[in-house]
């Protein structure tokens, strides 16, 4: 399969972002190709175009007629209320009569031929573990015998053991001629399994290689080399401001909760939001929970009693026509600044910031970081929930790892730098 000069933008008039920018790529049979890059680099968008789920604004997707693509999405496409067998039966398109028994028999056969272990096909998918759901997705994709199989961050919810199982299946499939595209941002596993690696950054392919080291890949993924240690940072540690379970934060302190996405971060943020309604809240799902798109900037600010919208626009350098512009018409970064103005201007004692820079450009990201530092310096206790380790190391005075809903003990950044990877993978 060949992708040639693909471009795709999202958003409306004033708020366009180029997710994929003039990318060409060839996918060969029987190879394992890794597409890596940071969040928002355009990997998933590119692959959805390749799979025909999105149509490109410009460029061409060339595939031969018998090319058949299986796509395992990062978000499960399963029906929780149906059983494993029924979910597998959904693949088929023709009309036929089939009892539950028949479906279950077929499911068992399908699972066997996939080489993946999954038992008791009469279980409802809602009752499966995350790893099992992920396996089921994979079985579904393999069952259609695709000539190309695209896996979007498949290991993010797998245990190391399950990841191994997945890699074994991937190798078998590749050996039998299937092209496999593996989207990831985890360098070690990419180096372990991929035959060819494509690095994407801000919508462009910045590197294509068969020989790579973790360092060279990391350099290509991020615009500047990962930040060096943050030097001497002396900060006053104040009195205890927040205590919730085994989370304790003092005034003047930034505590980072790090972990692989989907390990209970959302639930933690939700819990804290309910417990500290007056805290400054930066929601994790920015597009859904950030600003209220249909309301003006002024109205959005007024929700937290922030009145002087003119001044806020200036102070937070929000690029807007004025306080009466609809917040939904702003770019993502400027929307986030409206959220910051709304949440931080009250000088809350506690700030809960969940993924505050996810998907933002560099300028907006550093602005958000700056604001959080200023708030901490002014005495706020900040809980930073992030899956971006660089962000955590840049900002945090202390860290805890969240894995399957459980929080590790508190660590200094120095302690964390050696232990965090294992804790996030649940192997320590």
């Amino acid at each position: 399969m060949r992708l040639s000069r693909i471009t795709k933008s999202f958003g409306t008039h004033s708020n366009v972002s180029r997710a994929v920018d003039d990318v060409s790529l060839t996918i060969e049979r029987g190879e394992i190709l890794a597409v890596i890059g940071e969040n928002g680099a355009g990997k998933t968008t590119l692959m959805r175009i390749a799979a025909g789920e999105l149509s490109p604004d410009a460029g061409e997707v060339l595939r031969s007629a018998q090319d058949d693509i299986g796509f395992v999405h990062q978000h499960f496409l399963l029906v929780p209320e149906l059983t494993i067998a029924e979910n597998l039966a959904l693949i088929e398109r023709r009309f036929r009569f089939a009892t539950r028994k028949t479906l279950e028999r077929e499911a068992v056969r399908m699972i066997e031929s996939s080489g993946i272990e999954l038992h008791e096909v009469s279980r409802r998918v809602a009752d499966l573990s995350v790893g099992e759901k992920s396996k089921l997705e994979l079985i579904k994709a393999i069952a259609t015998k695709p000539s190309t199989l695209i896996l979007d961050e498949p290991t993010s919810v797998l245990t190391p053991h399950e990841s191994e199982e997945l890699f074994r299946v991937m190798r078998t499939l590749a050996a039998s001629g299937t092209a496999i595209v593996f989207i990831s941002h985890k360098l070690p596993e990419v180096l372990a399994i991929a035959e060819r690696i494509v690095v994407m950054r801000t919508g462009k392919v910045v590197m294509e290689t068969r020989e790579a080291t973790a360092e060279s890949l990391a350099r290509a993924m991020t615009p500047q080399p990962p930040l060096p240690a943050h030097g001497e940072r002396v900060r006053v540690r104040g009195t205890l401001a927040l205590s919730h379970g085994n989370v304790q934060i003092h005034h003047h302190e930034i505590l980072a909760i790090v972990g692989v996405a989907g390990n209970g971060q959302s639930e933690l943020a939700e819990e804290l939001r309910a417990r500290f309604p007056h805290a400054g809240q930066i929601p994790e799902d920015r597009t859904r929970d950030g600003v209220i798109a249909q309301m003006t900037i002024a109205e959005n600010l007024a929700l937290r009693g922030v009145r002087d919208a003119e001044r806020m626009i200036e102070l937070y350098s929000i690029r807007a026509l004025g306080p009466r512009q609809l917040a939904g018409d702003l770019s993502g970064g400027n929307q986030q600044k409206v959220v910051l103005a709304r949440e931080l201007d009250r000088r809350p004692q506690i700030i809960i910031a969940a993924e505050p820079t996810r998907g933002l450009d560099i300028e907006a990201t550093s602005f958000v970081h700056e604001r959080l530092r200023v708030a901490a310096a002014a005495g706020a206790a900040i809980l930073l929930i992030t899956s971006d380790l660089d962000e955590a190391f840049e900002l945090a005075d202390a860290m805890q790892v969240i894995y399957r809903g459980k929080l590790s003990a508190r660590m200094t950044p120095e302690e964390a730098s050696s232990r965090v990877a294992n804790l996030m993978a649940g192997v320590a």
Partner: protein
Amino acid sequence: MLDLVVRLIGDSIPLAILAATPLLLAVQGELVVQRSGMINLGIEGMMLVAAMTAVLAAQLTNSVALGFLGGIAGALIVAIVFGFFVITLKADQIVTGTAINLLAVGATSFVYRELQRSEIFVQSVPRIGTDVVVPLAWIVFPIVLAIVLWNTSFGLRLRACGENPDVIAPHVARHRAAALAIEALLAGTAGAYLTLALSSGFAENMTAGRGFIALSIVIFGRWKLKGAILGTAIFGLAAALQYAVQASARGVPYHLLLAVPYIVTLLILCGIAGKVRAPESLGR
């Protein structure tokens, strides 16, 4: 007192079965549609339009069978309008359903009054001879639906549409349209039965809330076929009892009796009378 109640119920059952037949048809239709993830408040309007087109077709052709076909055709037109707005334009289902009901009341009243000017439509309406609809509604359709919904790949996908349409995204529109067509078939038959069997002609707004009752029964039956049949029987019996009570037991507040099934449905929605689980994507 107790044997009075028993006698009343016993006397009411035959009437209840007849009177509840259109209701049961509508309930099954709405069940299919809701299982596919839509909520069609417009089923009331669908039945009303079918009731009218059935009468018109029967009068024109002097055939009851063609009358029923006319009813189904009328319901199908309503289904197409609803489907166009809800599936194609992705309009809100509640708002569209409300509009469909208003549309049906307005259009049928208007058209029927206009047609009364012509002679064909003042002649008497042919009535159903042998009632094949009752066994169809109570036995044949439930069996067929049970097979289609739970023992075919089509039924599986239709239910998946109601739970998580993203899974079969490219096929959702087709399956929901099919669900609406099934509903039109059933609700059309129901409307025709109202005019060609239960009464002798069309009257403004003659469905009198049966569509909404059907909607309640689908919930009452917890989106299951067995529950739907049981629910229809209970609602039908309550309605039939009202006449018996009116006739023989003065002083019993039968209006309040009529409200009881709705109160029970409310409690069911609150999960008090047992667990309830609606299709996850219903209404979206």
